[in-house]
């Protein structure tokens, strides 16, 4: 199982590798929603080569929804990835796969739409078309295992740690609210300080982030998967660790914790609160009251 980490600065490449990162995922200017460090093509190429020189793999993170007006620039990026012989392209919108196929790069695609990879048939359909699929974030551990058993002809991955997103709108919801309230607009875009508080339940705070492509809302608690990795470690190829809203020290400790048992014990002593197991043991229901009593 590879640990996939997001890069914040060029200066930390060696450190990420030193602590055990197998694959470094780079943001792509104009195509990464919720970016940490958007790179233009020149910067991307430079950092890509530096990571490759250190014998590590590089993924490009292209999780924006692709509109008609994005297609030309998308082809430009895919062409660059072809030249670089990139190791993987992590996508949200299936369009990127379609364009990558034009360049013979379909087998570099890791399909990570968040909500769509939810059944065994999806795995069978995507197998042999692309490199991998990231299983959806709202399915149970049992469902994950069942899907993985369905075929070995595709690599499986999960986003297993961190603040997981649960909403992606094209609307600039924070900016619009500031305008509506006639509030002085300070820096809103890519500002990680905004949180929403529910009215009906006490002390539930959801991080909310506005960026170039819209607005994103995240779970109130970080997902952790230490126990589940005991089951999944040999079944998945890539384990993505989300970095948003986590400081550098905690992020590095997180990477170590998924590699080394002693580091995990230290992690669990140091960071004790604000985690949950997401949907691993919580099946959702199709209609109110189907499974869960209110």
């Amino acid at each position, binding site marked *: 199982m590879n640990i996939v980490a997001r890069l914040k600065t060029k200066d930390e490449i060696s450190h990420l590798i030193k602590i055990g990162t197998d694959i470094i995922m780079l943001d792509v200017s104009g195509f990464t929603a919720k970016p940490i460090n958007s790179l233009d093509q020149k910067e991307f190429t430079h950092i890509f080569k530096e990571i490759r020189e250190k014998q590590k793999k590089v993924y490009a993170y292209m999780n924006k929804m692709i509109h008609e007006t994005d297609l030309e620039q998308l082809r430009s990026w895919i062409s660059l990835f072809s030249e670089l012989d990139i190791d993987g392209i992590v996508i949200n919108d299936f369009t990127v796969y379609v364009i990558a196929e034009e360049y013979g790069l379909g087998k570099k695609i890791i399909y990570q739409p968040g909500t769509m990879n939810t059944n065994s048939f999806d795995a069978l359909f995507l197998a042999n078309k692309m490199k991998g699929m990231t299983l959806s974030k709202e399915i149970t551990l049992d469902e994950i295992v069942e899907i993985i058993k369905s075929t070995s002809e595709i690599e499986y991955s999960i986003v297993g740690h961190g603040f997981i997103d649960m909403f992606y*709108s094209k609307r600039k919801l924070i900016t*619009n609210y500031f305008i509506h309230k006639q509030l002085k607009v300070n820096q809103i875009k890519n500002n990680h300080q905004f949180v929403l508080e529910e009215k009906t339940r006490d002390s539930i705070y959801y991080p909310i982030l506005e960026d170039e492509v819209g607005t994103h809302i995240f779970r109130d608690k970080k997902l952790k998967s230490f126990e589940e990795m005991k089951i999944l470690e040999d079944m998945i190829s890539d384990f993505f660790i989300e970095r948003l809203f986590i400081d550098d020290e905690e992020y590095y400790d997180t990477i170590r914790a998924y590699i080394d048992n002693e580091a995990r014990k230290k992690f669990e002593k140091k960071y004790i609160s604000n985690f949950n197991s997401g949907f691993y043991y919580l099946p959702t229901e199709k*209609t109110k009251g189907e499974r869960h009593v209110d």
Partner: protein
Amino acid sequence: MLTELLAPAGNLYKAKIALLYGADAVYIGGKQFSLRARASNFDLSMIDELVGFAHEINKKVYVTMNMVFHDEDVYGLEDYLLGLDKIGVDAIICSNMIVIEKAKLLTNLEIHLSTQFSLTNSALANYFYDQGVKRVVLSREASLEEIKMIQDQSKADLEVFIHGGMCVSYSGRCTLSNYTVLRDANRGGCAHTCRWLYNLYQGDKLISDDYDFQMSSKDLEATNHIKDLLEMKVSSLKVEGRMKSIHYIATVINTYRMMIDDYQAGCMRPIDHYQNEIKKAENRLTSHGFFEGDTTVEQQLYNSRSEVPTKEFVGLVKAYDKNKKEIIIQQRNYFEPGDRLEILMPDKTIIHLKTQTIKDEEDTELDAARHPLQTIRISSPIEVVENSMVRKIT
């Protein structure tokens, strides 16, 4: 090819009303596999009846199967698809590859890609066309300019939403409801968490006032852009709202039918005319959505969460008694003698009359029509057809 007007229908009667009031096709959900679980009460026998009704008047029926399947949901899928094929539904609307592939393998059903896939470009439209998908429903986030570009490049037919509620998120990409209340937004359980009230903080600083941060969007209303969409020759104009009332469906469908027919006849009326008609339905506040590009504060719904209730719809015409020259009405809202009424008929005819007397089924004169679903009679020298909508002019 003429552009189709496509209407929602939550039950058999609503579907018939939509078709009678000018929809070229209706889309419905079955008891299984549809995203609007609460709005989906069509079993196969009802679908069979509706398809028979629609085909008799040269109209179409599409069945939505647009939930995101988990392994546990697959049971019965093949039999269901075979059942729909046998009935002769005109298309299925789906978002999961399992449905597309099974439908191709087992049936001759026409396949449409649901907006749940949030398709916003021609490259993906053409991919799905090559996969056997005849039509794609565009994401509501596409602007008019983008729709035109996609239409110019797409091999697949395009279906465009023109009216009704809008997800705040890209459709199919939201798990707010899953996380907050364990109801699966992508399997029909959406709890509309995006319409809840929140406080907004920046760090520790409270920005909002008493939970007035809202994400809700105004409903979509495209009267200003119908002409553009017709000129682009998109295949289908779609109205949202399988949960809506028969009056809403009749009013909205009738208005867009008028617009399309007037455009095709080369005699469009001032836009106000259509907008005033559509306002007679019980809408939330409306806007043009993304048609004019990125949304602004004008497309958001602040401090006004509920539908604007209307008392205008006072009755549904069940029959006309030619001997007594009386309209037999099923009462829906209060009205009384002296009230001026407007009656909308399925063929777009509108008549006005003043209520003289109101009588119950025993011919007893009433001081008012005050009981919902009561059968009443009012006099009218003009014959009014069954399923006409009676509104009070306020």
